[in-house]
């Protein structure tokens, strides 16, 4: 093979490798979507169990970030996903086990439950319409459908607080339950409205600005 031929083959091979690498990069980027979890089917219908912790698992890439998780009815089997798959036009019951302390609301309006069936929530078994804004730890909100549920924080003087996920029910926690009707098929976003990102300006950086911690999607199918 002549020198010119070798040069052409070399350039062709390098170009092919570069093209494959670019294709792989784009392909992986487009297919690398966050994981999701579906609501559990119970005798009373669809039920979504969530857990909130002051800090993610120690093995997480951000082990100091506050986060939501999907759990089971006993606050076990923690999955770090914030995309929830729910059936369309269906009444869904949601239970949130919260192991985090209070941060207080930036807008007290979110201290009232809106968009739930009956406009109420059950906090530790007690039905109520609103909580003290200063005791709020998080808000589970789907703004596109007007849903906003305040989550009361664990007391500051809790005897047995949980730090990093996973947290069992033996740790101090609050339990908030509510029901709401899912909208039609589509992708909706949910978020927290409490500035709960410790260590960030105004509490709204880090986990509040990163999908997969204090916000995510509701995939209604």
């Amino acid at each position, binding site marked *: 093979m002549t020198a010119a031929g070798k040069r052409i083959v070399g350039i062709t091979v390098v170009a092919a490798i570069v093209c494959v690498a670019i294709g792989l990069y784009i392909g992986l980027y487009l297919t690398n979507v966050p994981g999701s979890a579906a609501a559990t089917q119970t005798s009373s219908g669809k039920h979504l169990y969530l857990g909130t912790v002051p800090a993610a698992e120690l093995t997480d890439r951000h082990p100091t970030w506050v986060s939501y998780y999907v759990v089971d009815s006993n606050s076990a089997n923690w999955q770090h996903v914030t995309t929830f798959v729910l059936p369309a036009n269906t009444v869904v019951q949601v239970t949130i086990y919260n192991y985090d302390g209070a941060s207080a609301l930036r807008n*007290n*309006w979110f201290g009232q439950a809106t968009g739930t069936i009956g406009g109420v929530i059950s906090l530790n078994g007690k039905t109520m319409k609103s909580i003290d804004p200063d005791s709020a730890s998080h808000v589970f909100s789907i703004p596109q459908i007007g849903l906003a549920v305040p989550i009361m924080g664990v007391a500051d003087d809790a005897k047995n607080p949980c730090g990093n996920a996973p947290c069992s029910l033996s740790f101090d926690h609050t339990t908030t339950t509510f029901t709401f009707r899912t909208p039609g098929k589509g992708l909706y976003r949910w978020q927290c409205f409490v500035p709960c990102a410790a260590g960030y300006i105004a*509490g709204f950086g880090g986990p509040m600005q990163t999908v997969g911690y204090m916000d995510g999607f509701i995939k209604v199918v």
Partner: protein
Amino acid sequence: MEETRHWRNFVVLWLVASLIMTPIVIFLLGPGLPPGNGSVEASGQVTDNTVLLATATPVALGVLVYLGYVLWAFREREPDAVLDGPAIRGDSSVQFWWLIATTTLVLFLAGYGTVRLLADGSGGGQGPNPIATPSVPAGGKRLVVQVVAQQWQFNYRFPGYGGVETNALELPENSLVQFNVTSLDVIHSFWAYELGVKADANPGVNNVAYVTTKGPLIFHVRCAELCGVWHGYMFNQGRVVTKAQFATWIAQQRVKFAPATSKLPPYSKTYFPDPLRRGG
């Protein structure tokens, strides 16, 4: 002589093109320009956009006709001969009239814009001390609505109705509405597209914008300032309804959000939430 003929041809072509296109812009394109006729201010913006486009039409046509004429009149007629053209030289007469024309246009537009802004504010945010206040429509009254922006939702507070705050916005028809726009965290921008209202929402600042509603309408509210990860989802719909429907709606909101209203701070033009317990 040759040069005079070219100028005459160009001016005639430009005048004909302008006389054809400018009425088309004014009477055909103008009525369809954004943001529509959802409010008095929106209609005013349609007029303003039409004036701007109609003013720009002869200017744009001047450039296009000149380009087209030059390409046609000075095209190469003898492809085999490669000849350089005459040397380019300055023309003080052209420069003089170019300056006169462009200066006149710019001053006209500056004057027109100033007059229009001073008339009613054109739906834009005027800061905490507005100087362009539209008049209240006959038989109506001014409705004050506070827009409270927060990552990532707009809420609306009605100081004239017990300070109730809602996550939806309804407005009465044929009414002057004063939006007091503020933010609880970062910079947002309240953009009610069909109403022709756009006002920045800055923390610690009361940015006032006015709109005079017309008939019933569904309008879209969007945040127009990049404000974080969910900026693209910071939107909702509002409605302009009859005065009777508005009275019913606001009464329902006062009942519905009574628990939240009781926990809200007293109505204020700005809010400075207490220091955060955890935020840095």
